[in-house]
């Protein structure tokens, strides 16, 4: 396999909505699978455990030994291809970061509102509405960014469609569960529903009115315009009654209309302007009374126009079609506006249009709980098989079938299911459907979203927040596993990963990362930094091994160069509570004191140097293999002009020498043993120093 790794290629992987991925260009030439197979070639692959990369290579189906020598080999097979399966497009990065910030702020808001019971009532619906609007603003920004891309490819078009769907779903949920629940506001859902309908589905625009009216300067031109009547019907369906009124008034003077059509156009125009609008300072009874009156008037108009149409049909038998068409259209508009369900169904193309017009003209004070009955009756008129995921999600939401709603949201986009289940949890409606799922839906969707970000170099921190903030044991476990596998490319990134561990109290992961960093630094020869990391997790064994390495380097080179390493460690030793014990590590204390001993000796402070040396021996912090060297180091002090060691000190030195000799006798191995001649010199020096000390003291 070694010679395969001669080069790497990067392939573009196109990803479709289903899980299948396709290499482009493919390693297999299209349509030549059987030929490849006959040449003992197949594909082998291995998926990277953390990132979204896969290693691909052409492999043999049989081992080389079992093949004849004349089997062909191909140069292009000596390659490993690294394929990055990009689950997140860079075009979404800004959106992901924006909404992550809102998500984190929302969690903090809920946490601050009540540590025990983070419910909507504690925070207030207004706070949640504000957050929901922030989410929607981010969606709208992303939609604008996608719309501004010149020459969009298929993926960008799909993304734009997805974001339109995400916004429509989110907006409707906000209206049903947040806006109409806001205290002090009218609880009728109708005006909000119409706002949602016109904001999310192509509405008759004011520009269209200008275009139609502008291209037709006179009333006659307007009456001739073929786009006029469909547009007016659309205005009626979407509740743009003031625009409708203006257009009808402008049309009325046309000579092309019959006298009756012109009269009824004028009359309908006036009625449009009189349409009652509900306001928060009006009682429901008062509004209903005004509505009934207006509706009765409209009913009278519709009946009268209907009679006229009937009479005209009897007289002409279909002649004068243009004028009849106008009257027919006026009749259809008045029928829609008086709330006739059949007329609304006949004029509406989409179920959303029919739903809106039904609510607006038939049930203008309807509340959210009325929606399931209405939507059920309306969608019966449509082929459900032609419904998109968006339609299904919206219908499920209007039906208050939240479990099905979440499933369809997940089909639309994973971002949507994760964030909307979180919002539903905060407004306490997720509990209604929790039992339907095997696992908690909020946890499941947030974890799935978080995991999808972990492999992305820019989004790993965002992914960890989603795992951490789903606040479940499973999330913490997954997070703990992932966090230790994040590549620690730089010192700053290591600090950031450790900070994540601190924030989410991942003690085990923190310890593993410190050990990992300690080993990494050790391999790179950064012994001080390695000790500092091992000290954070009280890994005394590793620190001991590093101390041994430092000591051996000193013994072999004879140069005391580890001072800066020790200094760095001593300064960093009190970085945290966990490393407080570092100062008590015997190996480090020994090295530190031994360095002090040499510095004092070099400075001529023999008495102080002797005290330090003796303290090393008395505290028994020196490793056994260093004792011989320490005793040898004491010889110049024993033989010097100044009396450094008292008789007690000398006895202590002799005791150490005796125990060393005994241990050497017990052990057959001679590692660290001092030379016998040096031992004899030490003994003589001790004897002389003892004699001097008796005389002196």
């Amino acid at each position, binding site marked *: 396999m070694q010679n395969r790794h001669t080069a790497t290629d990067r392939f573009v992987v196109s990803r479709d909505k289903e899980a299948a991925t396709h290499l482009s260009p493919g390693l297999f030439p299209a349509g030549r699978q059987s030929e490849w197979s006959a040449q003992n070639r197949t594909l082998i692959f291995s998926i990277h455990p953390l990132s979204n990369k896969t290693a691909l290579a052409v492999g043999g189906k049989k081992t080389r030994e079992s093949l004849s020598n004349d089997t062909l080999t191909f140069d292009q097979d000596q390659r490993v291809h690294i394929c990055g399966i990009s689950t997140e497009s860079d075009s979404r990065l800004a959106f992901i970061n924006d909404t992550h910030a809102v998500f984190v702020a929302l969690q903090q808001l809920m946490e601050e509102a009540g540590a025990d019971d983070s419910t909507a009532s504690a925070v207030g619906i207004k706070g949640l509405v504000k957050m929901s609007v922030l989410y929607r603003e981010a969606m709208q920004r992303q939609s604008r960014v996608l719309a501004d891309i010149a020459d969009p490819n298929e993926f960008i078009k799909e993304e734009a469609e997805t974001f339109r769907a995400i916004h429509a779903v989110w907006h409707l949920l906000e209206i049903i569960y947040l806006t109409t629940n806001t205290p002090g506001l009218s609880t009728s859902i109708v005006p909000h529903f119409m706002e949602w309908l016109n904001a999310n589905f192509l509405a008759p625009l004011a520009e269209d009115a200008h275009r139609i009216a502008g291209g037709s300067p006179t009333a006659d031109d307007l009456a001739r315009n073929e786009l006029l009547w469909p547009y007016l019907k659309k205005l009626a369906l979407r509740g743009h009654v003031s625009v409708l009124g203006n257009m009808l008034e402008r049309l009325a003077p046309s000579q092309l209309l019959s006298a009756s059509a012109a009269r009824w156009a004028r009359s309908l125009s006036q009625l449009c302007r009189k349409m009652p609008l509900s306001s928060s300072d009006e009682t429901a009874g008062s509004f209903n009374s005004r509505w009934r009156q207006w509706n009765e008037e409209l009913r009278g108009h519709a009946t009268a126009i209907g009679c006229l149409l009937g009479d005209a049909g009897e007289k002409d038998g279909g002649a004068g079609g243009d004028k009849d068409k106008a009257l027919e259209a006026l009749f259809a508009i008045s029928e829609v506006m008086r709330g006739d369900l059949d007329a609304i169904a006949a004029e509406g193309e989409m179920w959303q249009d029919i739903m809106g017009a039904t609510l607006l003209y038939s049930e203008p004070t309807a509340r959210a709980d009325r929606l399931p009955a209405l939507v059920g009756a309306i969608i019966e008129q449509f082929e459900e098989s032609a419904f998109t995921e968006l339609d299904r999600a919206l219908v499920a939401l209007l039906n208050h079938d939240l479990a099905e709603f979440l499933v369809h949201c997940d089909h639309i986009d994973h971002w949507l299911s994760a964030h909307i289940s979180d919002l539903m949890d905060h407004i306490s409606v997720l509990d209604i459907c929790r039992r339907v799922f095997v696992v908690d839906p909020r946890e499941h969707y947030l974890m799935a979203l978080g995991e999808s970000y972990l492999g992305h170099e820019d989004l790993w921190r965002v992914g960890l927040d989603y795992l951490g903030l789903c606040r479940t044991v499973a999330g913490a476990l997954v997070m703990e596993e992932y966090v230790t596998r994040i590549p620690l490319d730089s010192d*700053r990134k290591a*600090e950031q990963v450790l900070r994540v561990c601190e924030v989410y109290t991942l003690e085990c992961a923190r310890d593993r990362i410190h050990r990992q960093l300690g080993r990494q630094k050790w391999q790179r020869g950064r012994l001080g930094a390695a000790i500092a990391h091992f000290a954070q997790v009280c890994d005394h064994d590793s620190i001991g091994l590093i101390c041994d390495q430092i000591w051996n380097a000193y013994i072999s080179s004879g140069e005391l160069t580890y001072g800066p*390493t020790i200094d760095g460690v001593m300064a960093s030793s009190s970085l945290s509570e966990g490393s407080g014990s570092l100062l008590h590590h015997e190996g480090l204390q020994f090295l530190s004191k031994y360095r002090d001993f040499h510095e004092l000796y070099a400075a001529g402070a023999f008495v102080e140097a002797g005290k330090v040396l003796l303290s090393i021996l008395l505290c028994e912090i020196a490793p056994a293999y260093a004792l011989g060297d320490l005793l040898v180091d004491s010889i110049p002090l024993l033989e010097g002009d100044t009396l450094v060691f008292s008789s007690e000190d000398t006895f202590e030195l002799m005791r150490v020498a005796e125990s060393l000799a005994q241990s050497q006798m017990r052990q057959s191995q001679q590692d660290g043993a001092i030379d016998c001649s040096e031992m004899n010199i030490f003994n003589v020096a001790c004897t002389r120093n003892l004699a001097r000390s008796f005389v002196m003291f």
Partner: protein
Amino acid sequence: MSKLQVQPVARKVTAISWLPPRAGTAYTDTDLYFVTGSGAKHKELVLWTTPNPDFAQSEPDSTNDLATVVSKVPHNGDVQGIIALSPGLLATASSTGIISVYNVGTESGSMEFGESVTAHKFSNGEVAGATSLAVQPTGALDVEVASCGEDGRIAFTALSRLKESQGYDVDSTVITDLCWTTPTQLAITTRGGQIKIFDRRMPSEILAAFANSQSSQALESIAVHPSQPFRLATGTAGGSVLVWDIRDMRQPIIEELTVHEANVWQVRFDPADSTRVISCSEDASIAVTQWATEGRGAVALGVAPPERGVRRLSSMFNALSINCFDVCPSTRTHLLVAGSDSGNLLMEKTVNPDFKLF
């Protein structure tokens, strides 16, 4: 808490620096330029331009971008530091231990790679990330850039002899930041929680080393007072900003300002008012802190001392670490730009009433 204006740029911004104004156009430039460096997936340098707010005719439209891209150039490794040496020249430090020089043409809107040198390596041969760089404040034509890295070394690189970089092993942990206190003296901060002072003429010897005995934490960043070379500001891993007076090398005076909740990645004395220290942090905020010491002198002169306090800057749409910031030195309006891990450019414009040109 004040709000920062945000512009998403869809890449982690790890370093940022304003370009100094061209000779003859200082204070009259209608367009200002700055350079950002990014890391992780998009390793590149980006040259940006933004209108000079001093000459703004009207309030900017909130829907407009804060800055627009002039040019981009790929970078070898994550950009860990940027220093603008002149309006047409900048140096960068890389996570691959490379110090690079780039030529910038603001008029032509170009930015081109010049040359580079690997200044930081571990003893086992692996590349060591450079963590910061600083230009020697000599005013000489042939400037020298000092850099520090995860290998515990400081490297000196003269721009005219880039390949002859000299490195000195001065710490056993990671050197997190450095600054020149005088033209011959520089200070470094270490992950071990120390400040070490070096003389350029004897770079292998430590002149002095300090640590905060009260609560020793890793030091992440350092800056020197613009007119008092003995006064240093450091940011710690725990979120504090320490202001040091190192006139007495045996016992420096330390003032601790607890302004952040996590690692302080960059700290600077405000060039417009050195009684303020600006810092940015892993906690996704920028703090402008009035430190008190300089106010004592003001009392003696009969002037009311500045009120001590912290002004925090953050944004609702920026949840992750703010890695870097820079204050435009040549505008009447206090113009601060910053970059974050959330892939945002952040900006604050405040009119400074005390700013006087003459």
